[in-house]
C-alpha cells in the first residue's frame, strides 16, 4: 500500500497534515446539507 493522492472530506487540520507530508490532497468543499425541518420553518415564516 502506498499513499500518493488522497481525497479529504472534513476537518482542515487533517488535510493540512497530509499536505505537510507531501501527499497530493483533493480537498472537497463540504458542508452539511440544509436541515429539512429548518427549511420548512423558513418557508412557512416567509409565507405567514
Amino acid at each position, binding site marked *: 500500500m502506498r499513499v500518493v*493522492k488522497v481525497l479529504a472530506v472534513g476537518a482542515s487540520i*487533517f488535510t493540512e497534515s497530509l499536505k505537510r507530508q507531501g501527499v497530493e490532497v*483533493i480537498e472537497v468543499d463540504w458542508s452539511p446539507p440544509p436541515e429539512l425541518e429548518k427549511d420548512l420553518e423558513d418557508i412557512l415564516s416567509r409565507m405567514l
Partner: protein
Amino acid sequence: MNPAEDVANLVVRGLYRDSVQLMELMDRLKRMKGVVDAAVVMATDSNREALKKLGLLTQQGLTAGPNDIIVAVKATDAASVLETARELLLKGSSAHRKGPSLDEAINEKVDFASISVPGRYVNEIASRLLERGTNLFIFSDHVPIDVEVSLKTRAREMGVLVMGPEAGTAIIGGIGFGFANSIKKGPVGVVGSAGSGIQELAVLLDWMGIGISHAIGVGGRDLTKQVGGISSIEALKILMDDRDTQVIAVITKQSDEEIVKTVLESVRVTKPIMTAILGSQRKYIGQYPNSPTLHNLAIEICRTASVERFKAHYSLFLEEVVGLKRLVGEGLGHPRGFYSGGTLATETAYIWNWLGLQVYTNMTHSWTKKLAKSSHSEGATVVDFGDEEFTHGRPHPIIDPSLRNARVSAELSLEDVAAVVMDLIIGYGAPDNIVEKTVGEVGWAIRSHAKKLAIHVVGTPSDHQWGQTGLLEGLPIVRAPSNALAAAFAAAHSIGEVDVIERVSNSLILGDLA
C-alpha cells in the same frame, strides 16, 4: 460584570466550519484586547444551551439554527470584536470554497479518502466512495453501528480497506492519517482499535530504532461482537502478504478478548504476532503472547526484530529507571491521571490497579470503580478527556487540551494530591503550538505548588513540534520516556516507595527479561 463590558452575538447564516476552525477563531478572539470571554459554535441546540449556561447567549443568538454559526463575546467593545470575527469567517469562506464538491471529485483516482465529517453524514459519503473502490480512513464518531457493519461488509466484498469509523490513527507506508507521528519505516506491522495505543507503540519503537511498515487503525468498535473484527481480519491479511512486514502487533482496549482470539484464528498466520490487550491479565491470547503494557510490547518486538538494538535499548532503559527513582519523594497523597489519549488512560489505570490502588475513572472496566462525576476526583483517579462527555461540540483533546490542562492545574493545588500524570501527544493532527499552549496552561500551577507532574511526550524527534518540547525543560516536571514509566513514577511518589518503579519495570515492562 464590569459595566463597561457587554455581551453580544453575531449570527452568520448558512455557513459551516468544522470544530477546529471554530476553535482557532475563538482562540484568536479571546486574545483580542478587552475580550473577557468568547465562543464560536455551530448553533445546534446543545451548543446554544452551553452558551446560555456561560451567560453568552443573547436574543440574536436565539434566532440561529443548526446550519448557522454563532459568535458570542463578552468584551468592552463587543461590536468591533464581532466585526473582526465576521471578516475572519467570511475571508475563510472564500478560501474554503476553492475545493471541488464531492460530485466533482468523486471520479478522481485516489489511493485513500480521509473522512472527518459529523457522524450522521458519513454513510452517504463513504458509500459513494466505496462504490468507486476507494480505501477509506474514517475519523468520525457517532456513526450508527449498523452503518459501520454495512460499510465494512461491502468493503470486504470489494477488496477495499475501511479504517474506522472512530479510527484515531493510521500510518500507511510512512504517511500518517488522523493523529499520527513521523515514524521511521521498518518491519513492524500494526493492527489496532486504539489510536493513542498505536501512537505510543510506534513512538517507543522509533526510540528503539525500529520502524513501522503500516499501522492500520481499524476503529474503536471493530473488535466488538457487533462488528466482529471485519476490518481487523482484512488488515491482518494485508500485513501477512506485505513484503515489508516481518512481525505484527495487535493493540486493543476494552474489547472482547474472545473476538480478538477468533480474529487471529481466522487468518492464515505466516509471521510472528504479539498483542497488547490493555486491561487484560492474560499472558497469551490463543497461542500469541499478550503484553500488559505498550512499553513491554515494544521491548518484545524490538527483541524479536533486532538483538543489537534491544541490547542498546536495555542499557538506556535501566538508566532511565535509575533517573526516575532519584526523583521519587514521599508525596503521600493520591496519584491522579488526566489524558487526551484513552488507551494511555487505560494503561495507567491498569498499572495503578496492579499496584493495589483502588482506581476511580470515567472509563468502563470490570476492575475499576466509576467516578460519580468525572469532574470530581476520588482517591487514585484517571480521567479520559477523549470521552464523549468532554468532546460533544468540541475538538478532541489532542487538538484542544484546554479542559484537561485546566484540570491538571486545579488538581496540583489540592492538598490530598501527591502527583499528577498526563500525556502530551504531538505530531500530525495536533496543533503546531500544542506544547507552547500546554506549557502556558499548566506552567503556573506546577511552579506554584510542591507537587510532582509526570509528563510523557508521545512524539519523535522528527515531529514538527518536537523542537518546542525544550520548553518543558524550563518547568519543574518529571519527563518520562513512556506512559508506563510515567504512571509508575506518579504511583511511587504518591505511595512514597521508590521500589514501586522497580516492581512495575520488572513485572509489567521488562516482563520475563527482568
